[in-house]
């Protein structure tokens, strides 16, 4: 009997150990490309294609070149502006709409809800063609307003979709109590609901900002010189030149810093956010 128990425990340990190794391998393989981006940023352009992938003589040369590139700095500034603006607009407008859809009953409620949610799935390439023509006509091409509007087009439906369960989950009693106290509808929304759904707001803001920060196609087509965002600028480092991989990965790392910081510090919110809109219960 004792031998049996011992063998079972031994087997458990072996299995545990194997699983540990496998998990480690999965992690290393998965993170390798990220390591490549980060380490390549610390090499000179010419070293990357002369010395091969395993020689590492760290230098800040590429970072210096990237940070003195005024075009790139301007594009970073644009990305930040566009990200924050489209997020703020989407949160305010989206939260209001989400609230309206969940707390009231009215005709067309389902139709409107389906519209918001369905149009979230519009392929960007399908939308960018009419947007290009429209923006041309409205003189919105290559303007920050234009690209912010383009980003809002996917952020608002997303925020609405994400916040629906958060608003729906607030118990009726809060509403009733506020109404008994004589609050107006607007006050109920801002003073009662808005704070109550703040976890949802955090998630929604994070996602809206990241989606705007990462966005490429609209920026590529709808901007050129003035409103260019960072992803397009980074891609522009590969052109009719000897490939500037060092600068490109340095720029990429700079752009990844906010992404990683936000992702790792807010991961619990993020996971909740991805799930709440997607799984029942």
């Amino acid at each position: 009997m004792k031998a049996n128990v011992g063998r079972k425990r031994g087997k458990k340990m072996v299995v545990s150990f194997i699983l540990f190794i496998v998990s480690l391998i999965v992690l290393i393989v998965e993170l390798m490309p990220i390591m490549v981006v980060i380490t390549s940023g610390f090499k000179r352009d010419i070293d990357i294609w002369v010395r091969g992938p395993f020689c590492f003589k760290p230098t800040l040369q590429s970072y210096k070149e990237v940070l003195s590139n005024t075009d790139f700095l301007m594009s970073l500034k644009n990305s930040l502006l566009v990200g924050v603006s489209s997020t703020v607009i989407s949160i305010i407008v989206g939260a209001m709409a989400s609230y309206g859809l969940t707390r009231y009953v009215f005709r067309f409620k389902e139709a409107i809800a389906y519209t918001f949610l369905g149009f979230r799935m519009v392929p960007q390439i399908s939308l960018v063609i009419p947007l290009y023509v429209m923006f041309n006509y409205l003189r919105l091409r290559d303007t920050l307003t234009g690209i912010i509007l383009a980003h809002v087009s996917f952020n608002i439906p997303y925020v609405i979709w994400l916040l629906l369960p958060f608003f729906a989950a607030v118990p009726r009693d809060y509403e009733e109590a506020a109404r008994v106290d004589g609050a107006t509808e607007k006050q109920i929304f801002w003073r009662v609901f808005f704070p109550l759904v703040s976890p949802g707001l955090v998630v929604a803001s994070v996602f809206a900002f990241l989606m705007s920060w990462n966005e490429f196609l609209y920026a590529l087509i709808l901007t050129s010189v003035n409103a260019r965002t960072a992803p397009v600028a980074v891609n522009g480092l590969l052109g009719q030149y000897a490939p500037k991989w060092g600068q490109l990965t340095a720029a990429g790392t700079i752009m990844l810093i906010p992404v990683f910081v936000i992702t790792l510090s807010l991961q619990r919110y993020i996971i909740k956010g991805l799930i709440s809109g997607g799984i029942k219960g």
Partner: protein
Amino acid sequence: MPINANVYVWLTRKDLINDPKYRTEFKAKYGYDLGVPKTFKELRDMAEFFYSKGIYGFAPFTKQTEGSTAEAIFMFESFGTSPLTVQGGKVVVSLDEKKAVEAINFYKELLKFSPPGALDMGHSERIAAFNQGKVFTMFQWPALVPQHEDPNNSLVAGKIIYSAPPVGPVKVAAIRGCWVLAMPIASKNKAAAAEFAYWWASYETGQKLIPKGFTPARSDLLLNPNYNKERPWFKAIFDSMRNAVARPRFTKYPEASQIIRNYWLAAISGKMSPEEAVRKMKDELSELVGK
């Protein structure tokens, strides 16, 4: 008027043709001295020789863009034919099928001595390969030449000889593609536009712009000894210009370029036989021009 000089210049590695070991071996094998390839035969011989020494003899341009059309016309014209000829406002399909096939087969030979990925090479790949020191000779557009001479980005800076392209069986055919200073007929400020054009094309302005990377089209700047030392490719541009060949420009050129490029790339990659590709190119061009 041209806003700049944009024409094929030929790059050859000075250090490779001056290497005594290579010189003796080459002479022994081929019977003449190593040097800047002056004819297509020399180009092929030297490319083959260096390929056997572990250096790629040639770097083509094969991306699905205008650059490949330029290569196609470069080869066709060097062999004595052209897909289209613009005569007095009219466009005529003028491809000599036999010569075109010879051109394609010659280019296929050169591809054998080219770096990996030769069938999908664009500007950044060619520049990277040449700057790593892996390529013996190839063409380049003047605007991109400074990339090869920048010591921060090139291992072969200072080791390049510039010249006009080698002579094909019929002639030298440096492809020309100068960007243009043009005034629309509907312009409301013709005098101001003209004044700008004269200012841009002047000697003094050229002098100011050359340090910023400008490639002048004026011979008094291209042949100016002040620039010859630091920009040896200026003289090569001048030589190339004297043998320059334009691509056939007319209203439907973008479509024509696509047709030429599609069949050229299909033929040199082996997807289609040269004869079939040439025939189809001719047919589709006829259809386009006839519309």
